[in-house]
């Protein structure tokens, strides 16, 4: 099974992905795609264009959370139109079927040409995996009583309340259900999105979406190099290590860890997803003295090193700088991650993308960060981290205008459907 799970976005040949989900060991589902997979594996390995790279659809956790980031993403948020629990279950089953097909690939059915095609055709007649993941998450509004789920809401799930620097546009905020679509290319993401909306017109309708991108050449160096945001700074240097299972169980997955105390049983294996659409005032930023830019972030712009240190991954060593003379107290990295024993529980898994879409009404670039992060405890995670950053110097240059809090469903095994535990727990 793991040989199918080739990730050719890695620099070095890694026959066994470090991110494969351990639940696969010893369970039958591993054999599911093995027949087809084993035969095709050689071809996949030889393929260097990434189109045959695939991520497992099944697992304890959904793919797309600790999976290494590919270059393209769409976050799309829907309002659910289904009227009752049965309709909602149908939606989840439909999503499960489509996601399983799209992420693993396969032949599209032939149809009578007198009818519209079943599919956009962007990928031709045979869908290829292209490293696609689709991660389904639910907003607080799904638990409002329409589907009989009121008592099953993850305890921290809530609508997004604006932080002081936010200007949340209602048309780009919240929603019932988010799908994070990631793959090697924008086209594959778009293909998947169009497949989903074609298959669910009676069940949900799009509320907002945002496309994101990262440089493919940097993706290949993940773990060795860090992406830059559109302000030109390295972003995510101290991210949670996605290979550390103990850390993931504490900080990222709802689990048996004390950090998850009080969560409904069905939520185990899921994670809180935060999406924020954050416009960067890039023209203004580009007119800001370098020294001030670096002071605002707390890092040297080109090397990414903490101020006063030579290398990107050097410890910012805040303890040696109690006055904030080297790295100011309101520098972004100092507020985001003070690196004290008490703030360890606030660590989040960042999985953001850059975005660029046209112009603002003032004729300035509308671009910035499609911020996405995951955590096992929304309060200890994003809410606390962002609370610390209220008033940071960077605020003059950024404007969060949308997003939402969602709960990423636990993964599913062959024969199961997404959110099955939730539906079965409902009265």
């Amino acid at each position: 099974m793991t040989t199918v799970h080739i990730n050719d976005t890695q620099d070095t040949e890694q026959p066994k992905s470090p991110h494969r989900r351990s639940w696969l060991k010893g369970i039958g589902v591993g054999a599911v795609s093995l027949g087809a997979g084993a035969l095709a594996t050689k071809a996949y390995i030889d393929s260097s264009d990434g189109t045959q790279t695939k991520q497992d659809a099944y697992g304890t956790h959904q793919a797309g959370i600790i999976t290494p980031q590919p270059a393209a993403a769409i976050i799309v948020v829907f309002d659910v139109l289904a009227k009752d629990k049965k309709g909602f279950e149908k939606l989840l089953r439909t999503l499960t079927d489509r996601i399983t097909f799209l992420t693993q690939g396969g032949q599209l059915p032939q149809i009578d040409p007198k009818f519209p095609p079943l599919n956009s055709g962007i990928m031709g007649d045979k869908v290829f995996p292209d490293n696609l993941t689709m991660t389904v998450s639910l907003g607080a509004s799904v638990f409002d009583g329409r589907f009989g789920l009121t008592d099953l809401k993850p305890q921290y799930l809530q609508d997004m309340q604006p932080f002081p620097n936010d200007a949340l546009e209602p048309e780009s905020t919240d929603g019932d259900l988010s799908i994070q679509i990631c793959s090697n290319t924008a086209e594959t993401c778009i293909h998947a999105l169009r497949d989903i909306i074609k298959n669910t017109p009676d069940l949900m309708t799009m509320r907002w979406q945002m496309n994101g991108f990262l440089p493919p050449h940097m993706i290949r160096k993940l773990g060795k190099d860090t992406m830059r945001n559109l302000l030109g700074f390295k972003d995510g240097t101290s991210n949670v290590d996605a290979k550390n299972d103990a850390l993931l169980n504490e900080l990222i997955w709802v689990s048996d860890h004390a950090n998850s105390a009080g969560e409904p049983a069905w939520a185990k294996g899921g994670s809180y997803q935060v999406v924020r659409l954050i416009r960067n005032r890039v023209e203004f930023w580009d007119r800001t003295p370098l020294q001030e830019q670096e002071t605002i972030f707390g890092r040297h712009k080109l090397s990414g090193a903490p101020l006063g240190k030579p290398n990107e991954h050097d410890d910012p060593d805040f303890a040696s700088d109690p006055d904030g003379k080297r790295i100011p107290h309101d520098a972004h990295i100092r507020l985001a991650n003070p690196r004290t024993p008490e703030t360890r529980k606030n660590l989040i898994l960042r999985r953001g993308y850059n975005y660029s879409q046209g112009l603002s009404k003032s004729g300035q670039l509308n671009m910035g960060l499609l911020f996405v992060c995951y955590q096992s405890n929304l309060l200890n995670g994003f809410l606390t981290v962002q609370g610390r950053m209220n008033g940071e110097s960077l605020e003059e240059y950024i404007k969060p205008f949308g997003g939402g809090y969602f709960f990423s469903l636990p993964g599913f095994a062959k024969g199961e459907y997404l959110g099955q535990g939730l539906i079965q727990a409902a009265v």
Partner: protein
Amino acid sequence: MVSNFKLIAASCLTLASFTLTACGEKASAPKPADKTAAPAAPAANPEVAVAVTDTACEPASLTVPAGKTTFIISNKSSRPLEFEILKGVLVIEERENIAPSFTQKLTTTLDAGDYDMICGLLSNPRSKLTVTPNANAQVAAIPVTQLEAPIAQYKAYVLDETKAFVEKTEVFVAAINAGDMNKAKALYASTRAHYERIEPIAELFSDLDGSIDARADAYKKVEKDPEFTGFHRLEYALWSEKSLKGMKPIADKLLSDVKALQTQIAGLNFPATKVVGGAGVLIEEVANGKISGEEERYSHTDLSDFDANMAGSKKIVDLFRPLIEKADPVLLKKTDDNFASVEAILSKYKQGDTWASYDKLTEADRKALAAPVTVLAEDLSKLRGLLGLN
């Protein structure tokens, strides 16, 4: 719009000291001199001991030679205290929150002249620091002391504008409370203009900036949001709802917020980087929010704000004119030309004391404004660097 001094402003207010610069300086990077001081020539720096008590500096006066000096500041009281070196209203250096019985070092480069020191609380009487001429001292291209006079003049300008702002707001609020919609509409733009002229300073007080000047889109429920207050809420009532029903609490709060702002600004020491940087920040306001007509979306009085932002920016350029002239005469000339280009276009829409509705601007004029505004934003962004400010 929100200031990058939000946190600083808040923490200063809780310290019950209105000296923003005490905190504001913190946001600026360490001076290169600080970084290189210790390893380069530690022995060359004279070291001077100053004790900070609840009420004063010990000794009460100090004399040091021009150039680099290291102050060894010890807190001899039982609570956290601060230490500042000032030149008039200009804060040259500061250390805040020095813990009781702790000692901190502060290395700074001073030009010859008379300075003040404040120890303990910022309301304490000032002590004297005399810096004597020193032939060996390195001289900065533009000595920081030369910023003292323009910054003092800028503070006077801001205080005048604030005073007028309070007076006009009183009349505006009275009109609202009297239900006189026509009068309130007529006063709206000219009242706000005082705020728009001094925005880089007014924005330092982010809570007040929000309650006085935030637009509806800062709130999740937009116009219906109960947190939506201030000028734009009243603008919405006057032009969009066409009713002042329920506006008395909003109007009264506006007046008390505006008066609170006046009190805060009166006690403020003006950070040099903020003042000089303010020239560009005002233009960024125009480029990001005013060009689109989003700022005054109900009343379309954007041109008044536009003109006020420009005037506020030009004021700063004028105050620092001799220094800019010395540092980069070409840039100064170009800046003057661009201000003139903007004024020429705006003047077409001036109607006595008021301005044409922003939607009356031709597409060609809107486009024509974009070029000088963008160039001003680019050029004025260099001012701080030009004047040697971190």
